């Protein structure tokens, strides 16, 4: 069916349709834009003229936002020596090769406790965080939709087994399961994602199962059953499409909590380890440099909030479009 559709409709028509759809739903479009901007910036980070996010430089630590410093030269290891003042008397002894005149360097959001460029860290950090966020979200949705569908549609023994497992998972609320998993496996990007996924899957399975249950006895499902379609076909062709819209709402809800998860784990020293920072690490750094450089914690906080707000609005809008009755809310 789908393939037939796309054969009849050339790509141009799709684009036009999408454009019309977006124009008709300005709020939805507006909520998508910031998300896309953040993702695009994260993707093109290697192309941007950013300094190494991990390059520490003590002489510019806690540099306030919108200030500039000077690269005075290079030290023995060939690294830039950056200094906030352009005073030749202040040349650090470590400068081996001098630049004449010193090169200017801009710190838009200032520098953190080790003199690292906050902007650069934020952007590079968004790559790791978004990656975890997206992968975790996709995994959570795939796993929980699949098992929710099985349990909800098939019922009986399958439902019993799945739901008993879910009950066990649910007995470890919140971050407890993630904490244990992370302790056992040790902190790394993948383990963090695994921990986050495993700890949020049970709740999601139960949620999707509930949704499947409401759809299961609908007239069109019964019709499909009477037509003699097998269970698999009914599950994936009839039931699934009617549950899918909820995925967006769930994703929106999960999006924020994933970042807060990682931030929380960084805070207690179980977060991701360098080389590349993630928002959680930056946030916990910022917590400790609150007085000197509020930009450090404000950066990821604002970004996470923006993302979460946009996801929430996006989810609400999608729901409105899909269920007209709700749209009166």
């Amino acid at each position, binding site marked *: 069916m789908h393939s037939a559709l796309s054969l009849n409709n050339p790509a141009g028509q799709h684009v036009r349709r999408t454009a019309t759809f977006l124009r008709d739903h300005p709020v939805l479009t507006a909520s998508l834009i910031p998300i896309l901007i953040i993702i695009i910036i994260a993707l093109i980070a290697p192309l941007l003229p950013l300094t190494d996010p991990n390059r*520490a430089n*003590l*002489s510019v630590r*806690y540099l306030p936002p919108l200030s500039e410093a000077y690269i005075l030269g290079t030290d*023995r*290891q060939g690294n830039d020596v950056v*200094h906030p003042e352009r005073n030749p008397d*202040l*040349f*650090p*002894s470590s400068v081996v090769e001098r630049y004449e005149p010193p090169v200017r360097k801009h710190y838009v959001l200032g520098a953190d*406790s*080790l003199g690292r460029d906050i902007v650069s860290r934020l952007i590079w950090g968004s790559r790791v965080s978004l990656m975890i966020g997206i992968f975790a979200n996709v995994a959570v949705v795939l796993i929980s939709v699949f098992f929710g569908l099985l349990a909800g549609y098939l019922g009986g023994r399958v439902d019993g087994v799945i739901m008993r497992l879910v009950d066990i998972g649910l007995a470890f609320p919140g971050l407890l399961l993630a904490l244990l998993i992370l302790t056992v496996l040790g902190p790394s990007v993948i383990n963090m994602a695994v921990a986050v996924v495993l700890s949020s899957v049970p709740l999601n399975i139960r949620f999707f199962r509930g949704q499947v249950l409401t759809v299961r006895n609908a007239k069109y499902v019964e019709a499909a059953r009477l037509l003699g379609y097998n269970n698999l076909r009914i599950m994936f062709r009839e039931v699934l499409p009617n549950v899918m819209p909820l995925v967006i709402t769930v994703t929106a809800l999960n999006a924020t909590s994933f970042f807060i998860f990682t931030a929380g784990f960084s*805070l*207690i*020293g179980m977060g991701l380890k360098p080389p590349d920072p993630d928002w959680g690490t930056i946030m916990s750094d910022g*917590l*400790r*440099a*609150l*007085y*000197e450089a509020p930009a450090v914690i404000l950066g990821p906080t604002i970004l996470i909030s923006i993302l979460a707000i946009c996801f929430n609005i996006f989810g609400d809008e999608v729901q409105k479009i899909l269920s007209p009755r709700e749209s009166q809310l």
Partner: protein
Amino acid sequence: MILRSGAAAVAGGVGAAALAACGEAEVVEKTVTVTVTEVKEVVKEVPVETVVTKEVVKEVPVETVVTKEVIKEVPVVEVKEVEVEKVVTQEKVVEVQVEKVVEREKVVEVMVDNPKADSLVIGLPVTARVDDLDGSQVYEFQTKIHAFCTSESLLLYDYQTQTLKPRLAESWDVAPDATSVTFTLREGVTWHNGDPFTPEDVVFNFNRIFRDDDPYHAEGTFYYNGFAQPFYGDTEVLDGRTVRVNLTQPDALAAEKFGALDSSYMAHPPSVMEHGNREYSTDPDKYVGTGPYIPVELRPAELVRMVRNENWWGPKPDFDELIFRLFPGGAAGADARVNALLAGEVDVALYTPATRRNDLFRTPGIGAKWFSNFVLGYFYINHTFPLFADNRVRQAVARSFDRVSFYEATAGPTVLPWGRFWFPGSPYLNDAAELDYDPAQVASLMQDAGFSMGGDGVWANGDMRAEFKIQYSGDPGAPPDRETFWMQGLNDQGFSVELEAWDPAIRADFDSGPFAQQNLNVGGWGVGVFLGDPAFAYQRWTAGDFFALSYMDNAEMNQLYQDILVEADADNRTTKVHRMQEIAADQVPWIPSTVSTLGAAWREEKVTNVTSGATQYSYPWLYKVAPV
């Protein structure tokens, strides 16, 4: 010092020099402490005095800027008469400064600007057992501090000066053959309930602490006791003031081990017998100790409240009431402690995280004290080994290691080895002597001990042979990357500290023979404790690698740190580092265990980082630093 040179310059008729010297009001300020006494002497020396003074003072309205103006008015020609005036004016200036400084020093002692009422609240992390009042049952370094205000040991190991200090014992004496140690107890010490502190109490406690089969064995301490337990024989009362601990094997460090061990604290025998260890240590009503403060309230994980012990043997304790507010351990509590300090909820915060140092600095009334010492490692000498039986050889070993060169070669020019060697209280080491690198002294000590130097650079005395050498085979001009140096230890940087027995037969004894288990035995010296390169230390500090301790006016330290960052001249930098070291050395005097706690923390942190070379092979029979 400035004063003196200024005066001398004028006397010599060099006006310009005097101008230059006197122009630096700041310099004067920095050196006042030194000059205070000198000034008074100058006044006495000068016979012309009073009339002149008054005139000068009238002429000059403003105090601090004084110097320059006065000198301008005085023509340089009238050298001799001017001299008197000069000195007197200078004296004026200095006096003003002196007052300032004295005030500041007071603040330093109290450590908080304005302790509310007569109570002091100390923010303390609890990482281990939170409710011990009895020092002999404490589990961990951090939690000792409040227990050490209520209970005491016979002696105190002062990590700052690295000497033993009297406490409940007034003096101590290790027998020449190191098989026993005698403690003479202080007179007039009483327990909190008024009972006198007697030698029998010491016997009870030593048995309780060092004997596993004692019915009141203090369980919490068993692994500290491990250092001393194998040496413990028995304790006997010699007379009304003296006890003697007899050892099972010679131990040169008996005084430290039994008098000042982290767990050999005195508990009140009747109370322990009546209530048992646990209740005695956790219930303020049942606790009886000798310490300067008496516990009155204990809320686990919340606070320990204690009041002054009016009958304490020492000087009157500073505060009517001492409250330890207990915070979680680790980074969680550390941030919260700083917040509480800034908000005025506690007066002192112990173990503040490095990253919050600037918060503390910029808040009026709160200063931070910065400790940035690393302990590189320790070498313990087994003095039961034939070669080391002679204390002259041990002293020679101690003086043979050129720590300065070692650090400069490995960790850069701003690193200084600190102070003396570890455990100097040993009777075989001379407390008073600085055990610095001294090849001449090494030679004479070895000759005294009957060794003679062969052509191959090896000292020999009969079968015993010893060679002192430190090899650094890296390029001294290009020090290793310090970060990795400290993080990964010597070995990964291409260095190894290898300790080798000279005779292969003896070497086997070390590996598997009778000495294999004795690496922590007796005698010893530290390679060094030193103040790191501030920039590097700061970096490590912000990375949370080691602790910092708050309180105390530290603007100068901060300034020095800033200066050092941009100081190009190596000598000047070293001078400044020296000054920082001096400041760091000026430690908190009133809770002695704070100091030992920090020492322990560094030891804990750093020794584990510097790998096998330093800690696992603990017999510097011969040593060399060589590439892997």
